[in-house]
Structure formats: C-alpha cells, structure tokens
C-alpha cells in the first residue's frame, strides 16, 4: 500500500461511518419491539456490523488493509445519472401516468442516453419503432398472457 493511494482513500472512513450509523439506527429501532423473538436477530447483526465498521475504521487509521474499489475513469458520469434518474422517475411516475406511458418515456430517455452512434435516418426510424414494439410487446405479454394487473394512470386512465 503506497502513501499516495492512502492519501486518496477518503472513502473508507466515510463508508465505516455510514455502516456504523446504519447499525445505530437498527439498534434504536429494535427498542420499540414488543417481542424478544423480533429483536434478538437484528440486534445481534447490528452489533456485529458495528464491530466490523470499527475494525474497518481502525484499519484505515493505521494504514493497513487494502482498498479494492475502483475509481471512475474515462466514463460518462452524466449518462449514469440520467439512466438512474430515468428508471427511478419511471417507477415513481407509474401510478400517475400508468405503466405503458411511464415505461415508454423511461425507455425513450434511456435509449437517447445509451446512444453513442450517430443518428442516421435509418436509426431515427428503426430505433423508436423497435422501442415501441418491445415496450408494447412486453406490456401485452404481462397484462394479457400473464394477467398481471399493471398499474393504470391516475391522470391518464390507462
């Protein structure tokens, strides 16, 4: 472990703190349970997690142990965020827009986000059509063949 990578490793103490915080939260929550059957397991695990977090913090403090995380390099963080946002947005919009519309919008946004090739006229036609077919096909497969009651939109009515 070189001094340089040690200096860059600011994430480890943060992660240790986050996990310790989670453990504390769990311990606090277990105090509200009425039944011993309910708290014995989460409490034990939370204590173990707390101990492990402390060990991780100590490892970092004394400079041994290794980091095996990778740094993001040469990749588009922006596209990552758009993808995650589109998926979360799609999930949250489902009850309002209905599954079909929310799914189509999320699909379109992600399609544009994942597009690295130039938009030729051919692609401008084929990709949206293919997307609509895929979304519609899955929609029909699930709602009709598998009888899944997919959410209808509060605002749209379908």
């Amino acid at each position: 472990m070189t001094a340089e990578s040690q200096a860059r490793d600011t994430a480890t103490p943060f992660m240790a703190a986050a996990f310790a915080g989670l453990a504390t939260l769990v311990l606090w929550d277990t105090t509200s349970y009425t039944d011993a059957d309910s708290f014995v397991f989460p409490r034990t695990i939370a204590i173990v997690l707390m101990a492990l977090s402390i060990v991780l913090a100590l490892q970092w403090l004394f400079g041994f142990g290794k980091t095996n995380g990778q740094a993001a390099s040469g990749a588009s963080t922006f596209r990552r965020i758009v993808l995650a946002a589109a998926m979360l947005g799609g999930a949250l919009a489902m009850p309002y827009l209905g599954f079909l519309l929310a799914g189509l919008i999320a699909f379109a946004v992600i399609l544009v986000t994942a597009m690295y090739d130039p938009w030729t006229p051919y692609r401008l036609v084929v990709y949206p059509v293919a997307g609509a077919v895929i979304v519609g096909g899955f929609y029909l497969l699930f709602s009709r063949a598998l009888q899944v009651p997919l959410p209808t939109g509060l605002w749209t009515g379908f």
Partner: protein
Amino acid sequence: MAAIEHLLAALSPFNVLLALGGVIAGTIVGSLPGLTATMAVAVLVPITFSMEPASALILMGAIYTGAIYGGAYAAILLNTPGTPSAIATTFDGYPMAKRGDGDLAMTIACLASVVGGLVGALFLMVLAPPLAGVALAFGPVEYFWLAVFGLSLIASLSEGNLLKALMGGCLGLLLSTVGVAEVSADIRLTFGSQVLIGGIETVSALIGLYCIPVLIDLVATPARHLKVTQESKGLRLREGLALSWKHKFNLMRSSIVGTFVGILPGAGGSIAGLVAYSEAMRSSRNPEKFGKGAPEGIQASESANNATVGGGFIPTLVLGIPGTPPDAVILGALLVQGVKVGPNLFTSQGSIVYTFIWGLFLATILMLPVGLLIGRYAYRTIITIPKALLVPTVAFMTLIGSYSIRNSTSDVAIMVILGCIGWVLGRFGFSASPIVLGLILGSIAEQGFVQAWTIGAATHNLGGIFFGRPISIAIILFIVLSLFGPSLVRFIRGKKERPNDG
C-alpha cells in the same frame, strides 16, 4: 409392466405437446428477470382445471423446470439471475460471457440443467416415499445451520476483502428483517413508512443489486457489452460436452445436493445452487478460479437448481408439504382437482404420479434441444443488438419484472434505489453477492434460530438442540471444512505455490 404403461401414457401426443410447450414457455419466462416459475405456474392453474391431473402436472412441471433453467440466461448474459435459483450461476457465468465465452457458458448451463433435472426426477421416481423423511428430519435448528452454511460462502466470495464482504453480508441480513416479521409479526425497520411494511422483496432486490450496476456501467461507455472473440463458433456443443464429462463428479454431486436441498421445504433452488457451488469450490483443485469464469461453477449451480424440481416434488406429493413456492401452487391446483396427496398417491393413484414423473423426464430431455436453440438465439441477440436498444430494453424489463412479482410499484422504486446503492457500494469494494446472500438467507437463519431457541428453552436443552443433533453436527462440520479447509490444505502443502493475485 406398469412402468411401461405409464411411460406410454406420458408419451401420448397431447402430453408430449404439453411438455414441449411448457419447456419453451418456461425457458422464456425464466430468462426474464422478475418473471418467476411461481408466477408462470399460477397463471396456468385455471387452464389445468379442464385437464386430466397427470397432464396438468406435466404442463406445470415442464414450465417449472424450464423456468429454473431459463434463469441461467439472464445470469450469464446480464449478471442478473432470471430466477433466484440462478444466483450462483452469475458468479462464473457473467465473467465467462464478459471474456467472450458466453456461448460456451450457455451450452454448459443447458447440459448441467438437463443432468440435474434427470437426477432429481430419478430420485422422485425411485425413492420418493423414503426420502420424504429427510424433510421431517430437518428441524428449525438444521435450517439455521443450513443458512449459516450458505452464509459461509461469503468468505469464499470475498475477493480479497473479507471485512467488507462480511459487512455486506450484515447489510443483507438486516435488509431481510425489514417489514412485518414473518413469524413474530412485529413491524421492523420501516421507520413509519408504508412502503417498507411489505419488506424488501427478494427477487426485485436481486434484480436491483445485480442488474442496475451493470446497466449503469453499460451506459457510461461506448464499449460493447460482451466481448466477442471470433465471429460465430456455433453452439460449442463439443466443448461443452467435453467439459461436462471432465467434471462429471461435480455434476453428480451437485445434482444430489440439489435434490436433497429441494426436499427441504422452504430452502429452494437458490440455496441448492449456493451449497452446490460452495462444495464444488471446496473440492476443486483450483478453487482460486471460481468467481472468475470457471465452468465448474456454472455446472454446480445449474445442475443443483434443476435437481430441486424433482426433489421439491417429493415432500409435495408424499407429505402434502410443498418443497418450493411453485410446488405450493401445484399442490393447491391438485387439491382443487380433488387429488389427495400422501404416500398413498404413489400406490392407489400411481398412474397419475408415474405418468407425471415420466412426463418430467420427457420435459427435461426436451430441454436439451429447446434450451440450446433458445440459448443460442438469446446469446446472438444480446451480442448483436445495438447498445442504444439493449440498455433501455433491459432497463424496461427490470421495471416490469420487479413490478410483477407482487404487483407493487413500491417494489420497483426499491429495486432502483437498491441498485444505485449497490453500484456505489461496488465502487468502494463492497460487492453485491454478500448482500444478496444475507438477504436470501436472513429469514431462514432468523426463523430457525428463534424457533430452535424457543424449543430449547422450553425443554431446558439449549446446548443439545443447537449442537447435539446428528444432522446439525454434520452441517457444522461442512461449515468448518469450507471455511478452513482450503487454508488448511494450503498450510499442509507448504509454500510450494503462491496463491494467485487475481
């Protein structure tokens, strides 16, 4: 002979058609993350009311076995288990696909699934009534130790950072307790939120933790999803067969492990795959290759999970206690049809059972051509489809899949959020598999522990309950072996060979 008669009944054109259609539909269902075997079978129940019980069983069994196999596709090609049973398939399947051996991985998975399915069906046919006793010999404490055995795999999967793997495992265990507790009915870790009362749904959590990080990284660069070495190598069937023959003991052991875990109600294909994987790794001569694309890993997981199909039918048909969730649906359908399950089913209504088992054999054999063909098509689709369509399609599949498990939009949001957390954790060296193991095994470990403790305290025999029962002792022995065995062997061998720095 009666056996021939039942075989011929199973081979009636209608039943063959059902088996074929069932396997095809099942394989497709299984390959879509979020569409589980349970769901596919449940949809079919009303259709089967108009059929003979044996035909209904063949159709449902074929779908079930196909779906368990189909789970391997998404596991290999997208690092996302299509069904929970395929979790252990991701460990080596995806690395193989990444390096350009996806076609070989698909073929190996198909061969292993067929072998596992046949072994499971064979046990069901020959030894079902006596083997049902296994389900009864397993008490709460044995389930507890079995879960601990599964969790011990965290150490093997730790990729060089045991501490972080253990922390991930704890996170998974805590996630498993969110919501209404299954046995004590307390409401835990919801922090007043209605959304969390239903708990973290396992399948949608799996999709999130495994698939979302892949998508996030896929969208960030223009590089191809999977490496393609040469143009087309076909099915690589010869290579796959050679590897299967080479590792025949692994296949047999894993199939038997799968059958036995399948017999245990509530354990299921995911645990079977994990236990078989763990055993394959322990007894392999090069365990360091596991997790980096070892064909043996896929073989272990896939043969074990398909063996649970036959295994799971044993307690279902003999005891009336469903071995796995799809078995529960099938059992319900049989009850409504007026078929009384029990040991007598094998004697008094033998024609139903044996026709069905032959049908299961048939479906499993049909899985070979069907699986190879669909698998090849799936592989070609994944490597040729442009990224701009692949990413949104998979993303859309995760949305619809995670919704459909419980018809819940909250599960979709939880899936996406867990995926993002998983991606961040992955950046800092916390991999997804320990979290998933904790999540899957948490409730089994907890329930087993609490029940065993209650019984032990009531009978003033806590030590005897936890450490005094023969099956428990055997499982504990396996845990110790898989945890310390490899380092023990290395210690004895001395420093002849230095461990690889992968």
